């Protein structure tokens, strides 16, 4: 099986879906001639032409709205935000238009659109370029929110997102684009709304998504070797709708849980995970569920401060030990 980068996995997904359905087009800043700000759309302009790979001026609200309009009349736009930080400019179109038109029209007009781009912190990009805003969108009925952590998940989920027929917020990561993983050559999709157990274990459950998955896996390794604790790592993959069944099954087995996420603590996706588990798996919990989140501050520039602000394996291990009642 070939090993490719997360970036190339997305590229393949876009290419395959644009071949499969002529209604699919990509629109955003630098997606065409520049080959993509993060090279995700490399080669697509040459292959599909300027009506299907559309470079825009810096006008997020404008081109997000254009995407919505095109979707309303039957096209399948993929709107790229250079980062999700900038999507705040377009949030009116995502939340007030895309998410609501099907409902307001009494079911007449679907909006099959994918908004995609990298989210969350990278390295020393500063406060305005480092936000993990998935919970803002996961809050909104009418949207689906997807955050793949691996190349395999990225390709399969993007293909599903494009075909889904609903407005989808698709969160990638600058620091994920270069990561590598095995991706099969044939046609495959991954259903939205399904979490994935990335590592099995019987002693505790680590719930994570996007860049936190690597953090959780690293913590799990250390927990096994140094503390003889076998952690099960559950990658949410889709944040709305949440795959509560998989989460509950894991906690039924392990009886304890730590939720890891990059976003800020108040109202983060992890808070919803905790609520679902305390309701659905109350009698299986041997300890309160703990969360490891991004620090409740705007992201600082300094390297060490930034590292301290991000959820790292050390904090995950500390939380894991607490839920397992291990001293020290």
């Amino acid at each position, binding site marked *: 099986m070939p090993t490719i980068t997360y970036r190339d996995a997305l590229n393949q997904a876009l290419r395959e879906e644009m071949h499969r359905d002529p209604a699919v087009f990509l629109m955003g800043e630098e997606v065409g001639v520049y080959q993509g700000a993060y090279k995700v759309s490399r080669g697509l302009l040459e292959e599909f032409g300027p009506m299907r790979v559309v470079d825009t001026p810096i006008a997020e609200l404008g081109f997000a709205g254009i995407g919505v309009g095109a979707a309303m009349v039957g096209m399948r736009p993929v709107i790229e935000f250079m980062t999700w930080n900038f999507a705040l400019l377009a949030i009116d179109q995502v939340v007030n238009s895309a998410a609501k038109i099907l409902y307001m029209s009494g079911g007449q007009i679907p909006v099959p659109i994918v908004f995609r781009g990298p989210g969350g912190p990278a390295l020393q990009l500063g406060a305005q370029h480092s936000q993990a805003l998935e919970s803002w969108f996961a809050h909104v009925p009418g949207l689906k929110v997807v955050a793949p952590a691996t190349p395999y998940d990225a390709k399969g989920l993007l293909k599903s997102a494009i075909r889904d027929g609903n407005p989808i917020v698709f969160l990638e990561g600058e620091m994920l684009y270069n990561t590598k993983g095995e991706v099969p050559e044939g046609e495959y999709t991954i259903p939205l709304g399904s979490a994935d157990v990335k590592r099995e274990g019987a002693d505790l459950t680590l719930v994570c998504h996007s860049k936190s998955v690597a953090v959780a896996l690293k913590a799990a390794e250390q927990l096994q070797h140094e503390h003889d604790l076998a952690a099960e790592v559950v990658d949410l993959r889709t944040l709305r709708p949440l795959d509560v069944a998989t989460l509950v099954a894991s906690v039924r087995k392990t*009886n304890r849980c730590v939720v890891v996420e990059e976003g800020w603590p108040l109202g983060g996706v992890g808070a919803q995970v905790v609520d679902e588990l305390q309701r659905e798996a*109350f*009698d*299986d*919990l*041997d*300890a309160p569920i703990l969360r490891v989140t991004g620090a409740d501050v705007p992201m600082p520039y300094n390297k060490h401060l930034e590292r301290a602000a991000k959820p790292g394996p050390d904090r995950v291990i500390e939380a894991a030990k607490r839920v397992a*009642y291990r001293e020290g």
Partner: protein
Amino acid sequence: MATRVVMEALSPTMEEGRIARWLKKEGDAVTTGDILAEVETDKAIMELQARGEGVLRKIVVPEGGTTPVGNVVAVIAGADEDVSSAFDTTAPAAKAPAAPRPAGPPAAPVVPVVPVGRVRASPLARRLASEKGLDLQVIHGSGPGGRIVKRDLATAAPVSPAGLGGGEGWEDVPLTQIRKTIARRLGQSLGPVPHFFLTAEIDMERCAEAREALNALGEGRVSFNDIVIKVVAMALLQHRECNAWWQDDHIRYFNEVHLGMAVAVDDGLITPVIRQAHRKSLRQIAEEAVALADRARTRRLTPDEYTGATFSISNLGMLGIDEFTAVINPPEAAILAIGAVTPKPVAADGAVTVRRRMRVTMSCDHRVIDGATGARFLQTVKRMLENPLAILW
């Protein structure tokens, strides 16, 4: 429709019950409200009522059998009804195991509510304990704040089944409910509660004379115990610091006195409570003490007759004990152990004379009562007993 008769929570602290006697047999007709059986709880013998009507088709737990609260003990149904599915003997998991009452609040939880204080346990530990028939009250919690967690259950022994074995030179006797309760409650006393003990010898000559005079009036009889109860109650009004409950993060001081008096019963000990002892006359106390002791021995006390004491007294004087130390009933802060009233040679006014004396030992919870505090209380008790009119002062 079949009615499952389940073991009901007939006392606030009950977790299982033993069928002492079935009053109906299989095949008997039964209407709602009929007494089906006598159930031995951790405190007393209670009556199990029928909550449905029909025929008592099947007795699931026989006389002498013990089962956790919530489990099926019998089935009432129509004479010809198929009841094969009603024999499921286990209570639904993760639900309160008490039977539904016809009206009123939802069923009582498994974990006892008063007076010991809330048990801290993780939801998982609660569920597993309930499923395995383990008593959370006797399990030590290793989690924060004494929380009982899953690993603490691994070492806990399950509740013993009815009837064990015997062998050459020995016999295993299953614990009755009352013995289990005593073990559990007092096992949580001497260990965790920091006891210290104060002993005083009291001159009972005047008290004895007063008592004889009162009894000679022929209007009733008062015992030394009754007098001690009244004296202790009045003394506690002056020493509120000794009339208290330890409540983990605070102390409750009572302005009223509800005295527990230990009564020996068949198989152990129970402490019925004389409520408002400070307000009652000696006659009332005497009459109540007799009545309570009687009901205690026949196991007919109701839950609020044996809970809620603010202070307890234990008297082994009638069994010839000179003095002894009693174990505090948590969450009370103290208990007074009374020895026999015996004539003794004592020094008085430079000469040796024989007077009736009594030794009392007060066990105190050092978290609530200090040595001097306890001593001052005992001084008052002594003063009142040695000068009976001081009770009225």
